[in-house]
């Protein structure tokens, strides 16, 4: 462990800065505890969706509704943003603050592109007459995918807040765990999307 008064350089910066202090270790453990709860939250939403997806009443069914090329592009954006946030953490471990901020900024841009496509998708569906209250299928669809979209928005705001807050101070053992947890959260949101992409969109195409 490094004491608080040591000046950090590229040479003495620990390889796992997120767990180099007791506070960092506690945050790391606590954050996984939170992710465990998030897993259950999304499991509930996915379970509800699967149970209700064939109750489309007089509205559109899943294989009449979805816009596939759009969704594939959105998925690629989100997968790539997962890689760029991993690259940011790589730069963090090498104590290269500016590079890290840059990769996080690219992550934010990719996240925004994903959100823009999702908003466009929802508007398009509403135009087709597929609204939140159209059928049990539409309600569970918008709730599940909307919850995920809200997580993406929160992740974007989280990254931006950290980037602005620490823009002048540079990297330290106090803010390294914060950046690291934001990137863990981002990977988690990506993992959830992999499931939504498969269970909602691809299985929806099968019928």
């Amino acid at each position, binding site marked *: 462990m490094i004491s608080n008064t040591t000046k950090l350089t590229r040479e003495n910066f620990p390889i796992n800065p997120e767990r180099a202090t007791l506070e960092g270790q506690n945050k790391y453990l606590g954050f996984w505890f939170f992710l465990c709860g998030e897993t*259950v939250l999304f499991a*509930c939403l*996915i379970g509800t969706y*699967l149970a209700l997806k064939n109750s489309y009443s007089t509205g559109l069914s899943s294989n009449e509704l979805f816009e596939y090329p759009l969704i594939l592009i959105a998925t690629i954006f989100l*997968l790539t943003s997962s890689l760029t946030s991993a690259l940011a953490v790589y730069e963090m*471990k090498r104590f290269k603050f500016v590079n890290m901020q840059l990769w996080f900024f690219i992550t934010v841009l990719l996240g925004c592109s994903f959100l823009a496509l999702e908003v466009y998708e929802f508007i398009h569906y509403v135009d087709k007459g597929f609204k939140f209250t159209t059928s049990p299928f539409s309600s569970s669809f918008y709730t599940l995918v909307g919850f995920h979209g809200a997580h993406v928005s929160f992740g974007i705001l989280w990254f931006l807040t950290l980037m602005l807050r620490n823009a002048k101070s540079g990297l330290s053992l106090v803010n390294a765990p914060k950046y690291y947890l934001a990137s863990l959260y981002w990977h988690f949101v*990506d*993992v959830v999307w992999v499931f939504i992409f498969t269970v909602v969109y691809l299985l929806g195409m*099968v019928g």
Partner: protein
Amino acid sequence: MNDKKNTLNKQKLNKELKIQLLVFIVTLLLTVLAFVAVASEKFAPTFIAPFIVTLAVVQVIFQLYYFMHLKDKGNKEISIFLYGGLLIGVLTVIACLFIVWL
């Protein structure tokens, strides 16, 4: 002594980066494969559904172990949280599917 440790750490980081790039490419390929398999409409639903769900599970394992660092030393306690959450999650999905509304 410190220099030696530093070079070792750098090698370790670069190796990790290479693995992450590889994992990213594999994940992208699996996503496209799942998409193409469904879009071709050549396979029966009874085959395609378990097939694409398996692909998703493989991708998630890659993400968890290589991007979220579950493979690293000292992360055993953390995987308890993860598997605990997953267990409850899977049970919830099964319950919703077979018990609650049917």
